[in-house]
C-alpha cells in the first residue's frame, strides 16, 4: 500500500497502479479517453494530465499523464491545479476542433463519453475558425454503423478489436491529423466481438446499427439488468426497451463473467424477444390454427376436461428454466415428469452434477480461465458454442506477455509496453476440435479428430497414458504446469489420439470425455477409466447393459487400451452439442456449430472444458439489482410450448429481455413502465 496526496487529501492506494485508476476509484473527476479499464494505458489522448510535485516544497510541479504514472508512497498530485485544468481544457478544445456538433442527432447522444468529458472539462466555446476534416464512412455490416467524422483518434477501437479481440480487419490508417479507423475496404466486420466497438468508442463513430433502425433517444430507454440467454456462460447484460419494445442489449459489468465485453451474438441476437412467433399469453389453439387467449384457470380447466382421468406426463426442455421445469414437475407430479433429455444425455448430466456437488470437478469462471497458465479445450470450438469464453481464452494466452513484461519492470497496465515487449510470449492453449477452430491462431497446438478420437483424447488425459507410468495425475499436472508442461501436453496432443485411433476408444458421445469402462455409460471421471460411481469392483448400479459393454476386470486400469473395444460397435457419429435435441434437431455441420445454433453449450459432460452455467453459477447470484430474470427464464420464454408453465411462475412473468410484466391483481399483460426495478410493479394502465 502507498499513501499519496491528491489536492491535499490523502489516499491509501495500492502501490504500482496507475494514478488514473486510483483517482477514478477515489471518485475524483478526471477526464480520459484512450484509457480503458480492460485495455490499459497507452498515453495517446493526454487528457488525464495532472500536476505532480516532487516534494513538500515544490510549488511549480510538472504535468504528468495520470494513466501513465505509477503511484508510490509519498507522491503528491493536484488534479485541480489551474495549469492542469487549462491543459485538459486545451486537449478537449483540440479534440473538438474536428468533431461535428451533431449531438442532437447523434446515435451516441445521451451516453457520449466525449460529451460528458467536454462538459466536465469546461470547454464550452469554439474559438477555432477553421473547417473540420471530413471522411468517407464505410459499410461495416448490418450490426455496426460507421461515422468517422466524429472520431477523436483515441485508438481505443483498434486496441480492442485488433489487440484484445484478435481481429484482423480493422486498422488505423494514415498519419498526422488524418488517421482513419476502418477496414481496408467496405465490408462486414469479421470479428465475433465487433459489437463491443459500440461501447468501447468514446463517441459516436461506431454505433449500434439495429438500435438505430427505429427512432430512439437513449434517455427514453427503460433498462433492466438481465442475463444473456445466448449460451451457457450467462453474461450479465443490460436490456433496454422503449414503447414496450425491446431495443438493445448493452454490457453489464460482472467481475467473474463478462466484465466489459459481450459477444455479438449476445448483443445483437436478441430480436426473438419481440418475435412474432413467441407465445406471450395462455391461450388455446383451435383446429383451424387460430389462437384464442384464455385465462390460466380456464386453460387448466380445459386441459383437465380434455384429459379427464387419463395419465398425464410432462415433458420439459433442457432449455427451460429451473422454475419452469419445477412448475411443470409439480403440475404433473414428479414421477410423470421428464426434463426433456434423452436417457443417454440425462445420465452424463446427472453424473456431472454429482461431480460438481462432490467437489471433484469445478467450473472455472471466465476470470479464472484468464488466469490459467495453460488451457486445453476438448471437443468444442468456444467461438461457436460460448464466444465470450473464446475471448477469455485469448486473454489467458496473452497474459503471458504481462508476466514477461513484469520481469522487465513493465507494469501490467502499460498496454503498449506489455504488447511490445511480450509480443512473442504466450501461454499454451491446446485445441482438440472436430473441425478447424477459428481460435487456431492462438493455439500452441491444434488437434482435429472425430468425436471418438476426441473422446479418446479426453479419456487418455483423465486416465493417464497407459505407457507413461504414473498416469493421469502426471499428465494433468503437466497440463497445468506452465510452458514446459504445456509443451509436454502438446506432445501428448500429437500422439495420443493416434494411439487411441489404433486401439479404438469405444462408443462415446460427442460431448463425453469417454464412457465408463464398467459399461454403465457414464462419463469417465475417476482414475481407471471409470465413472465416479463405479469403483474398480464394478458398477454399483448394475447398469452394464450396453451392448458391447463388458464386465469390469481387475487390472483394467493398468492395461493398455489396444484391442479393447474392438468388439464394440463403432461410435455413433453425432454432431451437434445441443442437449435434448435428438434426431432431426441436430446440426448436420457437426459439433462445431451445434452449440451455436441452439444456444446451449451442453458443456457439463466435457472434461476439462470451459465454464458452463449451471444452477450454482455465480453469474446469476452475484449480479446487482433485484431478483433477476435468469437466462434460463429467457429460454423458457423462448420455448413456446412452455408458455403455460411460465405464466404460473412466481414473481411476475419475466420476458426474455429482462422486462417485468405487471403484477397487478388482474394480471394485465402490459409491461411495466420506466424504472422497472424500483417502482411498484404496476402497469401504467392502473
Amino acid at each position, binding site marked *: 500500500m502507498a499513501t499519496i496526496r491528491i489536492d491535499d487529501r490523502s489516499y491509501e492506494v495500492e502501490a504500482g497502479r496507475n494514478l488514473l485508476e486510483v483517482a477514478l476509484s477515489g471518485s475524483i473527476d478526471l477526464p480520459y479517453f484512450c484509457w480503458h479499464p480492460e485495455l490499459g494505458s497507452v*498515453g495517446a489522448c493526454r487528457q488525464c494530465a495532472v500536476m505532480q510535485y516532487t516534494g513538500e516544497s515544490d510549488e511549480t510541479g510538472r*504535468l504528468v499523464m495520470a494513466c501513465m504514472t505509477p503511484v508510490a508512497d509519498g507522491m503528491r498530485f493536484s488534479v485541480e491545479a489551474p495549469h492542469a485544468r487549462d491543459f485538459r481544457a486545451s486537449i478537449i478544445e483540440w*479534440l473538438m476542433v474536428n468533431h461535428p456538433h451533431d449531438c442532437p442527432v447523434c446515435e451516441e447522444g445521451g451516453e457520449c463519453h466525449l460529451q460528458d468529458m467536454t462538459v466536465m472539462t469546461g470547454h464550452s466555446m469554439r474559438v477555432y475558425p477553421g473547417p473540420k476534416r471530413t471522411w468517407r464512412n464505410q459499410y461495416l455490416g448490418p450490426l455496426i454503423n460507421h461515422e468517422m467524422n466524429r472520431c477523436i483518434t483515441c485508438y481505443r477501437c483498434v486496441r480492442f478489436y485488433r489487440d484484445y479481440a484478435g481481429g484482423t480487419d480493422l486498422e488505423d490508417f494514415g*498519419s498526422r491529423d488524418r488517421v482513419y479507423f476502418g477496414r481496408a475496404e467496405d465490408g462486414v466486420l469479421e470479428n465475433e466481438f465487433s459489437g463491443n466497438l459500440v461501447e468501447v468508442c468514446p463517441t459516436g463513430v461506431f454505433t449500434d446499427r439495429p438500435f438505430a433502425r427505429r427512432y430512439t433517444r437513449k434517455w427514453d430507454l427503460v433498462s433492466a439488468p438481465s442475463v444473456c440467454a445466448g449460451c451457457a456462460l450467462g453474461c450479465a447484460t443490460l436490456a433496454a426497451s422503449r414503447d414496450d419494445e425491446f431495443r438493445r442489449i448493452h454490457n453489464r459489468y460482472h467481475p467473474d463473467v463478462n466484465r466489459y465485453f459481450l459477444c455479438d451474438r449476445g448483443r445483437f441476437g436478441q430480436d426473438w424477444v419481440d418475435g412474432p412467433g413467441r407465445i406471450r399469453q395462455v391461450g388455446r389453439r383451435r383446429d383451424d390454427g387460430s389462437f384464442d387467449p384464455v385465462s390460466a384457470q380456464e386453460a387448466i380447466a380445459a386441459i383437465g376436461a380434455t384429459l379427464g382421468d387419463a395419465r398425464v406426463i410432462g415433458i420439459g426442455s433442457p432449455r427451460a428454466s429451473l422454475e419452469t421445469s419445477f412448475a411443470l414437475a409439480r403440475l404433473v407430479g414428479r414421477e410423470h415428469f421428464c426434463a426433456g433429455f434423452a436417457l443417454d444425455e440425462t445420465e452424463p448430466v446427472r453424473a456431472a452434477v454429482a461431480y460438481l456437488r462432490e467437489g471433484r470437478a469445478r467450473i472455472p469462471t471466465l476470470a479464472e480461465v484468464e488466469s490459467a497458465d495453460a488451457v486445453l479445450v476438448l471437443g468444442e470450438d468456444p467461438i461457436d458454442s460460448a464466444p465470450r469464453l473464446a475471448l477469455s481464452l485469448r486473454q489467458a494466452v496473452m497474459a503471458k506477455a504481462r508476466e514477461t513484461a513484469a520481469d522487465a*519492470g513493465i507494469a501490467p497496465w502499460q498496454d503498449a509496453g506489455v504488447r511490445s*515487449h511480450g509480443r512473442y510470449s504466450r501461454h499454451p492453449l491446446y485445441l482438440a476440435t472436430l473441425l478447424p477452430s477459428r481460435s487456431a491462431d492462438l493455439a500452441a497446438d491444434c488437434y482435429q479428430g472425430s468425436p471418438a478420437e476426441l473422446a479418446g483424447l479426453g479419456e487418455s488425459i483423465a486416465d493417464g497414458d497407459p505407457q507413461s507410468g504414473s498416469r493421469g495425475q502426471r499428465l494433468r499436472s503437466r497440463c497445468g504446469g506452465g510452458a514446459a508442461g504445456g509443451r509436454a501436453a502438446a506432445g501428448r496432443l500429437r500422439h495420443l489420439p493416434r494411439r487411441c485411433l489404433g486401439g479404438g476408444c469405444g462408443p462415446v458421445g460427442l460431448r463425453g470425455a469417454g464412457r465408463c469402462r464398467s459399461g454403465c455409460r457414464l462419463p469417465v471421471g475417476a482414475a481407471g477409466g471409470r465413472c465416479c460411481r463405479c469403483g474398480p469392483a464394478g458398477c454399483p448400479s448394475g447398469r452394464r447393459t450396453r451392448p458391447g459393454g463388458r464386465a469390469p476386470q481387475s487390472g483394467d486400469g493398468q492395461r493398455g487400451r489396444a484391442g479393447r473395444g474392438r468388439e464394440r460397435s463403432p461410435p455413433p457419429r453425432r454432431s451437434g452439442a445441443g442437449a435434448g435435441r435428438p434426431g432431426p434437431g441436430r446440426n448436420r455441420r457437426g459439433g462445431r456449430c451445434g452449440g451455436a445454433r441452439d444456444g446451449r453449450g451442453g458443456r457439463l459432460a466435457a472434461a476439462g472444458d470451459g465454464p458452463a452455467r449451471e444452477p450454482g453459477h455465480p453469474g446469476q447470484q452475484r449480479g446487482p439489482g433485484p431478483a433477476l430474470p435468469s437466462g434460463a427464464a429467457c429460454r423458457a420464454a423462448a420455448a413456446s410450448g412452455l408458455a403455460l408453465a411460465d405464466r404460473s411462475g412466481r414473481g411476475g412473468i419475466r420476458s426474455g429481455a429482462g422486462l417485468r410484466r405487471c403484477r397487478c391483481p388482474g394480471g394485465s399483460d402490459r409491461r411495466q413502465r420506466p424504472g422497472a426495478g424500483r417502482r411498484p410493479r404496476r402497469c401504467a394502465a392502473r
Partner: protein
Amino acid sequence: MSPTGAHPDESRPLTGRIDAAGGPVSLEQVKTWSGYAGARRAWLEMSREEVIEEVKAANLRGRGGAGFAAGVKWGFVPSGEKDDGGVRYLIANCDEMEPGTFKDRYLLENDPHLLIEGMVIGARAIRAEHGFIFLRGEYVHAAERLRQALGEAEAEGWIGDDACGSGEPFHLHLHLSGGRYICGEETALLNALEGRMPQPRARPPFPPASGAWGRPTIVNNCETLCNVPAILRCGAEAYTELGIGSNSGTKLYGVSGRVRRPGLKELPLGTSIREILFEHAGGMLEGHHFRGLLPGGASTDFLVEEHLDLPMDFESIGEAGSRMGTGTMVVVDDSVCIVDLSRNLQHFFAQESCGFCTPCREGLPVLERMLMALEEGTARPGDLERMERQAGFIGVPGNTFCVHATGAMEPLRSALKHFREDFEAHLEAGGCPHRARVGAAAGRAS
C-alpha cells in the same frame, strides 16, 4: 585484407579521407588510408568491455541531437548473466529529415565505409549479430553508394559470417525508409523497420532492453557511428584532444541560409558560432543582415546576435535555451519573414506528426492555422496569447507522447520570444508587412 597505411588527416576523422580523395572515397583508397584498422583492433585485440570503455573514455556524444554518450548507451545492453545469448541489433539512424540538415548525406555519399566500419565496431561492443542502416528513402545516391560499399565490405571480409576474421558473424542490411520525419525517432524507427506504423513506442521498455522484434537494440546516429573508427584507431585520448575545452572529437557543422559559403565543415566540437558562421561560411551575403539562427535544424530554438560567441557544443547551446541538435544551423536574415518561416516550419511538423497523441496531432495544425491567419490578415486580437498558451502546453517535454511536438514548438516559442514585434506587426497591419514591403519593392523594380 591488405595492410593499411595512415589516415590522411587524423585531425579530421570524418572528412579527412573525403578531402584527400577530392570526392567519393574508393575501396582502394579506404584500404590505403587506414581502412578498418579500428574495426580489426576492436574485433581481434579487444574484448567487448574494452571497446565500450574506450568509447566511454572518448566521451563520444550522440550527434543526432540529444547528445547522449554513445559508450554509456552501448553499456545498457544486457551483459554477463543478463545476456540470454539471443540475437541483438545495431541500427544506424540515417533517416536524416531534419530541415536544414545534410551531414549524414555528405558522409554516406562520399565515404560509406566510414559508417560501415563504425557499425562493425559497434556490433563488436554490443555483440550484435545483425545491423541495419535505416536510410532516408530519398537518399537514392547514398543508397547506391552504400549498397556498393556493403558488397565490398562483404567481399573483403569486414562483415559477414566471419566479421574481420574474428569467427563471429555480423550481417549488415540496408533499409530504405518510407519517408516520414517521425521515423527518425528511435522507437518509431524500430516500428517502421518491423513494418509497423511508425509511431513512437512507450518507454519502458527501452530499446537497449527490448527494441527491434523485442530484442536488445542500439540505435545510433549515422555521424556518431562515423566517429567510432577514429576512437578505436587512435585511442580515446587522441580523440578527446580533437575537441575544444571539455568537448571531444570533431563535429560536422553545417550552415544554410543566405551566407557566402553554405555547406559543411568538420571542425573541433566547441568551435564558436561566430567562427563557423563568419570564418568558415564566409559571413552573410551582400545586402543581407543576420537576424537569428536555428542552431541544429528546424526543431531547435532561435539564437540571436547576443549568442554568436557561444561555443557550438551541447552544454553552451543548452544553457542559452536552445539545443545543438544536429549542429547544422539555419541562418535567418532580414529578408525572411519570421512569421512565414514559423508557419512553414509548423506546416512541416504538423504534416510529419504520426497522429498518436492529441497535442501533436490536433494542436500543431491549429497553430499552423493561426500563423496562416496572421499571414493572411484574418487573425484576431488575442490570437498571439492563444498561440503562446497552446505552444506552452505542447512545448514541454512529457506533455506529448514523444518529443516531436516539443521540438516543433522550439522555433515557434523562441520566435515569439525574440521576434515578437514581427508577430505584432502582422496583427496590426492585418497581414504580412514583410510581404507588402517586398512586393512593393518588386513593383518598383518592374
